[in-house]
């Protein structure tokens, strides 16, 4: 195995592109090292991206926030204002691993590792986040939700890597949330999870709703058609029950020791409802705050 720590994007791209065998980007290494040790992967080349200029920056840009690919969970959650801006992504990121893992884990790593249970993928997806990708054919952007293609597989081409993730600005009175079900409250992997993004108008009427579900299919499930269903309505018990039902029936989970198909589908509906109540409350609080 060759270890390289290039100090430019260009150098990283050509190293990745010129190696014929398996290559792996190393960011926090909390997936890569575990997989190497278990023998699941045997990379010919490891490219540590942490010396690339700008890769560890968090920046407020005109379109939102730009999160460098090597920003760790603890750096994200200690950055002033980010938790208020996107409580949903912040709580998803914060749920990854222990304090030790938080010092290393990254959004880009969680995304590219493409686990069906990855905590930040549903949260990034509902907020319409996108990745800035560089590679041998230049620069491109793609929505986070298009990147995982199967467990452990992603849509990046040879030589490409993620430089940063953009969390776009959102309309006033919008918020988000993420919750997961795990047997243990810390250091566990989601059995089911739900992320919600909601936009209200100043009369509390729903203008936008997105829900994504984790660990209930081979990739994150983005529930379709919710927006039309809820447009201009208020949140009611009836509406919440309908949404829970739609979410439950969107799942294609597996049966395993951590949860049966029936359990996972049911819990997905329950979590979707709770995530929606939470995001709705957060968005509603903004209406009050701005009115005051």
């Amino acid at each position, binding site marked *: 195995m060759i*270890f390289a720590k290039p100090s430019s994007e260009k150098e990283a791209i050509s190293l990745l592109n010129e190696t014929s065998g398996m290559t792996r980007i190393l960011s926090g290494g*909390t997936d890569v090292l575990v997989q190497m040790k278990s023998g699941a992967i045997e990379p010919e080349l490891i490219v540590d991206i942490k010396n690339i200029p700008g890769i560890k920056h968090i920046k407020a840009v005109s379109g939102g926030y730009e999160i460098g690919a090597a920003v760790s969970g603890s750096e994200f959650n200690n950055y002033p204002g980010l938790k208020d801006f996107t409580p949903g992504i912040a709580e998803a990121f914060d749920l990854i691993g222990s304090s030790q893992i938080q010092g290393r884990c990254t959004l880009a790593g969680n995304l590219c590792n493409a686990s069906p249970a990855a905590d930040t993928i549903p949260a990034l997806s509902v907020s319409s986040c996108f990745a800035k990708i560089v590679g041998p054919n230049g620069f491109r952007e793609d929505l986070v939700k298009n990147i995982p293609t199967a467990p452990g597989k992603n849509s990046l081409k040879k030589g490409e890597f993620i430089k940063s993730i953009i969390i776009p600005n959102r309309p006033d009175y919008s918020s988000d949330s993420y919750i997961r079900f795990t047997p243990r409250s810390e250091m566990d992997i989601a059995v089911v999870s739900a992320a919600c993004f909601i936009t209200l108008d100043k009369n509390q009427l729903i203008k936008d709703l997105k829900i994504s579900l984790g660990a209930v299919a081979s990739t994150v499930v983005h529930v379709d058609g919710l927006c039309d269903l809820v447009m201009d309505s208020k949140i009611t018990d009836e509406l919440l029950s309908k949404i829970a039902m739609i979410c439950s029936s969107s799942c294609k989970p597996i049966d395993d020791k951590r949860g049966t198909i029936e359990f996972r589908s049911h819990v997905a509906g329950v979590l979707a409802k709770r995530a929606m109540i939470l995001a709705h409350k957060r968005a509603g609080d903004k209406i009050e705050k701005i009115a005051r």
Partner: protein
Amino acid sequence: MKKLHVNVSVNKNELEFLCNPEDTLLDVLRNDLQLTGTKEGCSTGDCGACSVILDKKLVCSCLVLAAEVDGSEIDTIEGMADDNKLHPLQKKFLEHAALQCGICTPGILVAAKALLEKNLNPTEKEIRYWLAGNLCRCTGYDKIIRAVMDAASEMRNENGSNYS
């Protein structure tokens, strides 16, 4: 295989070592630098026995490649006591008998110190969450939590009005 040359500061001492690309920081600390206070439990990031501070951040040294740390500052359990003067956390672990076999202890001390550097007045819940990645198969955790709370309280008093 060509070895990689790495410069680091460990417990404020400038050191250099040679490593293989797949060696972890934990391997090098224990096998090459003879700093065996940092323990190996699981090797997969789950137990926290290998906790060290890397560039001011708490990490599992089993999940860091040795080659990554060139130019970094590392603090291990060996740097915790000030010569023969134990750190308040170490003292309180002894007083509260917060260890039995002791394999988890260095990792827990390093992790607890990182918490108290951030927050000298943590609640019990905050301590329990912060240490959730440090497994102990002997004590049942309660004495560990009491010892950390007691050390924090002593450190607040020592620091006088700075932290009140």
